Each structure stands twice: as C-alpha cells, then as structure tokens.
C-alpha cells in the first residue's frame, strides 16, 4: 500500500497558489500571509506553475467547460436567468422556513447550495437501473452541489452522471478533485453546478495544502459566482468541500478551523467562504471551527443521514461576511421526496443532501457605527 502523497506532484501540493489570486498573474500575491500549518510556503516553482493557469487543473478533471486560462468565470456569456419552477420538493426536514412554491433559485433569484455525501459513488452505483436518473433528479433540485465520496478508479463516473443530469436540457457542469486518502482506498470531491445560474472560476480550483498531514482527505476548494446580468455585483464565494476521517474527528475539525481562516484570507477581494460536507461531527462537536468568531451553520436540530440518527452533514460560513444567506435551509429527505422505502433510500446513500439558500447579489460590507467599512476577522 503506497503512501498517499507519492502520487501527487509538488504542483498539486502547492495548489493553494492557484487559488489565492485573480487571473493568470494573480496567484501569488506577496501579501498573502502564511497562516497555520496548512499553507505551504510559496515557491518560484509554484508561482511559475500557477501563472500557467490551466496547469493547475491538470490533476483534477474538469468538465465540459474548457479550462479558462484567462481566469474569468465560466465560458458563456450571461444571457439572463431562466425562469424555472425547479425547487426542492416538499416533505423534507426543514430549517427555519418552509420552501414556497417558487422557492427554487431560478424562481426567486436565489441560489440553492447543497452538500451530498453519496456513499461510494462509483461505477457500480451508477450502473444500477434508475440510479443515475434518480441522482440526476436530486442534483437538479440545486444550483450547486458539493459531493463527497466519489470512489472510482475510472474517470467516467461524474461525466456520465452529469450527462444524465443534462438529459432534460439542463446545463450542469462539474469540477472534480484528485483522489485522496491514506490507504489504497481513495475518494474524490466534486462540485456539480448549474451553469445557467452559477459559474466557477477555473483559476481558483484546488486542494488545500496539508504538509503536516492533519487531514485525511484535504478539502477541495473552488470559487464560484452567481450568474447574473451584473457580474460585478454578483455573489461570489469559496466552496470548501470536506469529508473528515471518522476516527480523527476532533483533530480534523480543529484543522478545518485553520482551513477556514486561511480561505477567508486567500483573496483580499473575497470574504465569503462556505465550508460544507460530511464532518462526522454534529453541531455540538464542531470544536474550534464552531467557535470561530461569527461562525454560523445551517443544519441544526435535525438529522442528516438516511437512517435519521445522525447529524454529521452541515454548511458553515461566517455570518457577518456571508450575509447573502437568506436563512432558508433544509435536509432533502430521499424517502419522502422520491417515494422511496428506507432500503431504497439507503441504496442511494446513507446520507441526505443538506442545502442552504443564498442571494445572488453580493451583500455590501457591513459598516462600523461611524460608517466606515468594518474589517473582518
């Protein structure tokens, strides 16, 4: 059994240089601080590689959109938002607000962002009759889904799934990270997103560097922007996708506090960080991560697994920075929404998607009492 990091080039482990700047030349802004043990020292090699833009993506298989070496978002012009009736179905465990009939992102101008641990998402799962279609249906409920537990040696699983998502005319795309894990059993993270409503910055995709090996499966980060007719005012944000090791949860959650803080400072022009995934920790077990100033999480008081006895999936952000959050969230109940038995739902996954709604427009920075912009921690 090989050590997990031997397969990845130094390029990949300096990947943070690829997410710190804007555009080709912005990767290694010298004022980016080195914070905590999770950020590697920037080197000339990393700088040169980062400046190549697309080279950073060589080890993560991007989807249908071409690699945008220019560092701009997406590949197509914004032509306006489709008016679709898509919305999360009723009958799900709820957060503070029940979804309305026009609750979908395309109905009311908001984004629905979800996290979904799809247990052992690999060839055998998507080969089951009806499974791809079912997963596609779930994915279409959301504008952007952070998926954990892609387990496949072949690279066709997510492309095939996204093809199915798009079989009804939808236009989803994906970005996927490297295979990670300390044993020979590895997982990938992926983001699947509706290109009609969300675009990603190809120059801001990567895996958090972890030179002290604090995290079993280092988070996969990507910067996104709501697709609107006024990109300069659109909501932009980092997504930090995580699946912790259930045997080292306190240590990993503690390390994620560092990750979050690093990501908050990754770009001077980006204050929104959404950390989401399967933390293997309930809201009471978030440790230092949960105690970061202003930290907020959406899932509270409900279970998030199919067997309805654990609440390990969550979506976290700094509440003062990410005021784009509307307060609406939920857990998508596979049984109730899809008319499945418990056994059938477990065949889909032992986890349920959790989701949160965000406005598509960037919230203005909060001001201090005297009207000057406040500084974030």
């Amino acid at each position: 059994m090989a050590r997990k990091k031997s397969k990845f080039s130094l390029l990949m482990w300096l990947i943070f240089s690829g997410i710190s700047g804007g555009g080709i030349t912005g990767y290694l802004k010298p004022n980016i601080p080195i914070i905590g043990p999770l950020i590697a020292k920037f080197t000339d090699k990393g700088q040169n590689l980062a400046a190549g833009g697309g080279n950073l993506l060589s080890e993560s298989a991007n989807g249908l959109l071409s690699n945008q070496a220019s560092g701009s978002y997406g590949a197509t012009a914004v032509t306006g938002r489709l008016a679709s009736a898509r919305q999360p179905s009723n009958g799900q465990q709820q957060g503070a607000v029940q979804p309305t009939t026009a609750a979908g992102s395309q109905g009311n101008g908001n984004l629905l962002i979800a996290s979904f641990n799809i247990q052992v998402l690999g060839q055998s799962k998507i080969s089951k009759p009806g499974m791809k279609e079912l997963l596609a249906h779930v994915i279409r409920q959301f504008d952007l889904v952070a998926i954990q537990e892609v387990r496949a040696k072949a690279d066709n699983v997510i492309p095939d799934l996204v093809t199915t998502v798009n079989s009804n005319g939808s236009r989803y795309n994906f970005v996927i990270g490297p295979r990670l894990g300390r044993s020979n059993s590895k997982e990938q993270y992926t983001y699947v997103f509706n290109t009609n409503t969300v675009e990603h910055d190809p120059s801001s995709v990567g895996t958090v560097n972890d030179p002290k090996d604090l995290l079993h499966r280092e988070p996969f980060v990507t910067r996104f922007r709501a697709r609107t007719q006024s990109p300069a005012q659109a909501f932009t944000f980092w997504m930090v996708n995580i699946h912790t090791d259930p045997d080292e949860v306190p240590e990993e959650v503690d390390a994620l506090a560092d990750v979050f803080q690093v990501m908050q400072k990754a770009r001077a022009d980006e204050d929104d960080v959404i950390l989401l995934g399967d933390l293997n920790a309930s809201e009471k077990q978030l440790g230092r991560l949960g105690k970061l100033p202003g930290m907020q999480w959406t899932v509270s008081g409900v279970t998030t697994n199919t067997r309805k006895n654990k609440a390990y999936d969550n979506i976290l952000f700094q509440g003062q920075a990410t005021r784009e959050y509307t307060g609406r969230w939920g857990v998508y109940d596979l049984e109730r929404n899809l008319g499945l038995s418990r056994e059938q739902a477990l065949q889909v996954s032992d986890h349920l998607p959790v989701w949160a709604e965000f406005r598509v427009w960037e919230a203005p920075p909060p001001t201090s009492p005297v009207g000057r912009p406040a500084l974030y921690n």
Partner: protein
Amino acid sequence: MNSATTLQHLLHGSPSERATAAEYLAQQGPEAAYAASELTAACSDTESVSDWAVAALEELGPPPSSAIDSLVSLAQSEKPLTVYWAVTLLGRAGPDALAHQQVLVTLLQYSQDSAVQEKAAWSLGRMQATSSEATQALQQAAQSPESRLSRVAAKSLQQTQT
C-alpha cells in the same frame, strides 16, 4: 438480508453476491459490526467489493470483542488494506484489544507502509498500551521525521501515560 446470509454471501458468494453483501453492510452503519472481521478481509477483494467493505468499515465504529482475535490475525495479513483496517479496528476496540498490543508494536516498528505505521501508533494510544515495548516503539516513532507519524505517536504516548 439476515446476518447469516450476508456473511455467507460476503465470504463465499459470487462476485456480485459479495459486492451486494458488502454494500448492504455499508448501509447498516454500526449495526454491521458483527461482520467486522469479514469486512476487513473483504477489503482485499475486487474493487466492487472492497469499496463497499471500506465504506462499511469507516462507519462501523468499534468491533465486537468476539472479533478481536480474528482481527489480530488479519493484522498480520500480506494484504495492505486488510492490515490497515484490522489495525484501525483494533484501535477502535480500545483496551479490549490490549492483550494484543505486541502485534501493533511490531507493525509500528517494521511495517513498510507508513499509513499502517501511523494507524498502529494511533491504535496503541487508543488501547492505552503501556508495555515497555509499546512505550519504546512509540517514543521512537515520536522522533520520526514523518510529521504525522511523530505527531500521532506523541499523542499516543500522552494517552498511555494518563
């Protein structure tokens, strides 16, 4: 699928039966603990079985004490992923597996697989291994240039000394 049939399929079934059994167990969470050693062995099966076996083991929690002896045997397997998970489950067993600490000490000292070494160090801490051999091995590992191994070993030393 009842437990006896599940184990039968996992151990002796056709490839698809073994995969189906492993998948079923992966969906059971800690309730699949009765299959701890069988799942550990199944880690070295074909990919379609192994992926589900690993998923099941991640969610399994601690093994029953009845599985400890077979896990100790599996910790001495030639198959790396089986060893990794056997060591992990022995660690999760905690003090119940203390009688077998020497197996983990040997792995910590001599395994060529760094992930197994790290898990062995972790497991020795979990089982509160305090034999002189365990302490010595952990002390040595705590000096390792590999940061994760040294960190895990140092923490395990702290755990065994409390």
